[in-house]
């Protein structure tokens, strides 16, 4: 088995006086979609932000593509090949959709073919290309946020709750886009509360509880084992 694209070893992170991550260890296999699951407040978003470098881990190791990156800035991690879609979308409202996309292409002008592909995956982006991003609907903003991470080929995508608060029709567009990304062999670590989406996309799964990764394995195993779900997450997921 090849070396994972990302691995965390006993990572600890504090936010102000709160000890949020208490020794997270997990790995993300190359070319697979790894779902990060768990109840609210267990540290999933903090884990994502720590991997991206927006929060500094006070202990532990983060290895990305074979290199230790704990001391690197977020900008360096991005340029090393990590694309991040934050929970709050993080779009630049005053800039147009076009400007948001161009900014995200840090290694130069965006590739035309890739842009055309993104337009087919997320048609509203083409329609509102010159519009200020702040005027987009919630779903369109999420599309922009994901498209921005996808504008360049990344070694790893960190996607935090991409379907949160979206209408079912938009959710299916998102799932289609992420499935397309997965088909291209992308490595993805994704936080998702919608278990149906997690089951549809995930190959691998890590469950967190109280600032630690408490279980990892195949998504299919978790999806079919209701007793395991009950034990790990406190309730059985009835995927729709």
């Amino acid at each position, binding site marked *: 088995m090849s070396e994972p694209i990302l691995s965390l070893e006993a990572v600890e992170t504090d936010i102000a006086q709160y000890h949020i991550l208490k020794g997270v260890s997990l790995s993300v296999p190359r070319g697979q979609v790894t779902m990060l699951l768990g109840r609210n407040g267990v540290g999933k978003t903090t884990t994502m932000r720590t991997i991206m470098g*927006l929060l500094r881990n006070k202990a532990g190791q983060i290895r990305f593509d074979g290199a230790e990156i704990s001391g690197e800035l977020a*900008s360096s991690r991005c340029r090393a090949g990590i694309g991040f879609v934050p929970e709050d979308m*993080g779009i*630049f409202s005053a800039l147009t959709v076009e400007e948001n996309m*161009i900014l995200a292409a840090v290694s130069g002008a965006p590739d035309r073919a890739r842009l055309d592909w993104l337009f087919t995956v997320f048609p509203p982006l083409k329609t509102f290309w010159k519009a200020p991003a702040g005027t987009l609907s919630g779903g369109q903003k999420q599309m922009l946020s994901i498209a921005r991470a996808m504008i360049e080929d990344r070694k790893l995508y960190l996607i935090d709750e991409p379907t949160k608060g979206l209408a079912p029709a938009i959710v299916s567009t998102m799932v289609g886009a992420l499935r397309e990304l997965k088909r291209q062999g992308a490595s993805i670590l994704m936080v998702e509360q919608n278990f149906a989406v997690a089951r549809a996309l995930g190959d691998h799964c890590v469950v967190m509880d109280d600032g630690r990764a408490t279980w990892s394995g195949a998504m299919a195993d978790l999806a079919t084992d209701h007793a395991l779900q009950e034990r790990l997450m406190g309730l059985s997921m009835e995927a729709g």
Partner: protein
Amino acid sequence: MVRFLLSGDAPRSRILAVLLALVLVGLAFAPFIFPGVRALHTAATICIFILLVASYDLLLGYTGIVSFAHTMFFGLGAYGVALASVHMGRGWDALAVGTLAGALAATVLAWLIGLFSLRVRAIFFAMITLAVASAVAVLVSQLYQLTGGEDGLTYQIPRELTPAFRFGELFGVRLNGRLLNYYLVFFTCLALFLLLLRIVNSPFGRVLQAIRENDFRAEAIGYRVVVYRTAATCMSAAIAALAGSLYAIWLRYVGPDTTLSFEIMIDVLLMVVIGGMGTMYGAVIGATIFVLAQNYLQNLMGLAAEATAGLPLIPDLVDPNRWLMWLGVLFVLSVYFFPTGIVGRLRAGR
């Protein structure tokens, strides 16, 4: 051509376009439309403050950095010209050396402040700039042997820029060095303003706007926020210093009150807010209104007091001595009715 000069950043409002055209024409032909020493001084002050306010807008409006050291950079440029003119004597070389030295000093100081303090929270950065600016103002006041202290410095500039240099008459206006001096100020300010427009509409400018909106996100998509912030601070400081140099060339005098005082910093802040932050054109509108009000509101109130002399209460209310109070009322009203500034309001209402 116009679109190219404006770097594709059109006014996006007909009223705004008309206002900007009026200001441009008014300033371009000021010596001929508004003859007189006072009017010309007002026009030159407007040009210089448009540049100073625009350079501050690069920092505050486009990058989201609150700094109280902007007049310090303005002062460094002014004192650069003054000191060079005093020590090198009257000459173009003194102006060039003083201008370059002032801009360089401002850039280096801005770089140092940025390097040490732009990593901290915005409020701490603002406090640090306030402390540094106060320290420099005290230093200028204390080093009176070099800077003239509170009295400032008076010096000579090349004769070609003084009223003594005469070369004819046009449309009844005497053509002299003062006119040349005005056009030196006008065209330099215009060129630097267009340069600022180019900067904010470049990819670099877009990154600054992204940082202003969400610095974490900007960092996460690959931009070193501290580097961009420091670069913006240095550019802004250099242009403020150039504005200061122009002011020194225009006035032939520098002193703490005219270039370094905290009152000027407050004025600049008000001009940015009134005009509209993050628009560049807001600097044009804000500075023009503010400088005109500062110079002519008192006269206007005098006329109003005379015209209403027979009425009860009103002449007292519009007494010219109360001009500062009315200036304050005007600012409160403008901020109340135009929270996004005049330019923001005009653009939103198109």
